[in-house]
């Protein structure tokens, strides 16, 4: 049976002339999220709200919509036939599903279907009276009700009250595309989530260094992408064969600069791929001071080789805050699987924590940077990753 869900979107309602653009993207996002369960999802837009009619099972709808950025609230509605008896009884059911005792309430009716003979205020009055008659300990307050029961008179009557929070943010894709430097760790998937929440589409890139990292590590990264794809839909993972570059760095750069050299090469390669696919920025999971390569000096050394912005949405987060989000979005359990994402062989014993740029340049002088970049770019596998449903 077809059910109605009312979808409220907050922030995008504020965006003046851009609003139709945001709304269109949001509606596309909703459609995409629900299509796997129902190919004939119907959407209708009114002020600040979207009506979503679908035959998909309720828990699938709620799970999917909770992952569509831009949605602030989802209200699942109950439907019934167009007569006051059914409307009254359905209103009673809706109220009983709330913790109503001792609360104040109001009934609000809209009647787009004018063939229904009773006018909206009269419907509200009758429904309110029915509720008061059948339930104790309930009071009407039309100005500041604690519970609001909404009645919509369409080809059927739809009633709702519950408001389930959505993820908020902006519809995915309304802010362009960025390339994510994805490792198998806890941080980078969270960084991706933060950017996606602001409407940025994410295309991940992973640097694979077989045999220094195992193919299980690569499978883990693919699994993480499957989780991210639950928010973004199908995504393209770029897997760079980084082994040769890593070996060259290992052989020709001073040990304490290994990590910085590696990061700089990763950024150079990622940036080139980003340009190819039309991404406008890089995203990393770096958080200030977390490890030796994430000091201000080390970050500046990485930044130096980038011409596009590098977003680090976790820069001011504590590990514990990052873990909280990772758990919430479902990437944590995969991230902690024990296959090393970046082999410890190439972690210097005494990493340079405060590298000055001249030192970095000196360290890099033994490397043919252009050649190494080409080396990385010529062996990239693109994997289409589908959402984990």
């Amino acid at each position, binding site marked *: 049976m077809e059910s109605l869900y009312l979808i409220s979107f907050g922030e995008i309602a504020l965006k003046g002339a851009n609003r139709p653009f945001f709304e269109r993207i949001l509606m596309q996002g909703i459609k995409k999220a629900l299509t796997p369960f129902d190919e004939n999802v119907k959407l209708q837009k009114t002020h600040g709200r979207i009506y979503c009619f679908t035959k998909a099972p309720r828990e699938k709808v709620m799970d999917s919509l909770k992952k569509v950025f831009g949605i602030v609230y989802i209200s699942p509605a109950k439907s019934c036939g167009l007569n006051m008896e059914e409307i009254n009884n359905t209103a009673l059911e809706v109220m009983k599903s709330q913790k109503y005792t001792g609360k104040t309430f109001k009934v609000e009716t809209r009647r787009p279907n004018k063939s229904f003979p009773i006018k909206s205020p009269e419907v509200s009055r009758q429904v309110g009276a029915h509720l008061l008659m059948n339930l104790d300990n309930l009071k009407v307050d039309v100005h500041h009700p604690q519970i609001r029961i909404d009645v919509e008179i369409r080809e059927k009557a739809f009633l709702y009250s519950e408001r389930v929070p959505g993820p908020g943010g902006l519809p995915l894709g309304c802010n362009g595309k960025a390339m994510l430097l994805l490792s198998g760790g806890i941080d980078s998937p969270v960084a991706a989530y933060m950017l996606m929440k602001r409407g940025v589409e994410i295309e991940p890139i992973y640097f694979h260094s*077989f*045999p*220094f990292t*195992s*193919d299980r590590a690569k499978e883990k990264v693919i699994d993480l992408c499957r989780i991210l794809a639950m928010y973004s839909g199908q995504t393209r993972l770029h897997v760079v064969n980084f082994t040769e570059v890593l*070996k060259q760095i*290992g052989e020709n750069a001073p040990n304490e600069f290994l990590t910085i050299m590696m990061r700089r090469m990763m950024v150079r390669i990622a940036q080139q791929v980003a340009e190819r696919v039309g991404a406008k920025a890089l995203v990393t999971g770096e958080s200030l001071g977390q490890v030796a390569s994430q000091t201000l000096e080390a970050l500046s050394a990485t930044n130096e080789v980038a011409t596009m912005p590098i977003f680090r949405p976790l820069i001011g987060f504590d590990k514990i805050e990052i873990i909280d989000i990772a758990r919430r979005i479902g990437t944590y359990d995969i991230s902690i699987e*024990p296959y090393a994402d970046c082999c*410890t*062989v190439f972690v210097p014993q005494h990493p340079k924590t405060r590298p000055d740029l001249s030192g970095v340049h000196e360290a890099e002088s033994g490397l043919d940077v252009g050649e190494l970049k080409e080396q990385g770019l010529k062996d990239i596998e693109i994997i289409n990753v589908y959402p984990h449903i």
Partner: protein
Amino acid sequence: MKQVYLDNSSTTKVLDEAAKAVFDVMTENYGNPSSLHKKGIESEKLMRQARGIIASALDVNSKEIYFTSGGTESNNLAIKGAAYSLRRKGNHLITSTIEHPSVLEVFRALEKEGFKVTYLRVDKDGFVDIEELKEALTPETVLVSIMYVNNEVGSIQPIKDAAKAIKDQNKDTLFHVDAVQAFGKIHLIQGLKDIDLLSLSGHKIYAPKGIGALFVRDGVRILPILHGGGQETGIRSGTENLPGIVGLGVAAETCFKNISEWQSKMSELKKRLMDGILKEIPDAVLNGPALGAPHILNFSFPGTRGEILLHALEAKGIYVSTGSACSSHKGGKSHVLAALGKSHDEQDSALRFSLSPYILPEDIDYTVRVLGIEVAELRKFVRR
């Protein structure tokens, strides 16, 4: 690309004749051995045949063989079953520090239940010391469990001497032997003299996974850990895994028909591999005894990391393991190599090569060649 599977102590390819027998049982003789009708009787007959094969391979009586789901269950059943059954006679147990986790972890669990456990140390080649065993035995000792062949380094324990030492001290002390890596690979003690319980597994000897057996000497009473329909005379309830049982029987028959030939064939391959490594790879360190089981060889390559080396070999079609497959998943170190007194670097860089009689001498030469190249390449990065 050439494929060389040198991980046969993790698990093996199923023999064609065993796979066929399994298929036939699944599609034709699918009756339940406990059923009263003809289909049941046919199945029971097949089961009796398989039991007979295992019994004669072990040189014991058919009714002393109980089928289980594999080595882990056999070890659990033997150790818990014996310990619980004898609890009133004493609460001291003995085992060694280099047992498989399916033995060690059972003892750890029993310790939590109040049993006292002595863990026998091993020497640098991975052998327990009979004198230490004698000293550990007390009038309270009800069970001793020692493995026949160590799964990581291939040391063959002095089972005969251990059995004698135990029984000299107290005839009622039970002796369990985990023979998962020995059964079908080497000749076991005739008639399993003075052994009361012995575990074996199918998938190490070219039978399918999910089947194993426990030998329980006639007259020895152990308590079941699975209760139910009373199959296997109540020691192991649950409908018998007839396809597995028949597969185990067929594979065991082939192994025992060829045991002497295969043993010498694998010994030669092992020697070729060992000599090749010692000759071609500087600073390679042999872990465990130079002789020992014919199918297990363990080396450390200091200045590399076992796991990276494993992946580098994999890329060239050669499959090995670090430590044992069971411990390699934990990302931890091998408790066996630690017990042998190996350094951190040696523990980190160890690989286990485990052979089958189907490997060719040229496979070994290829392995040595590739290993030489990969070890040298890795050492450029790791050793600084």
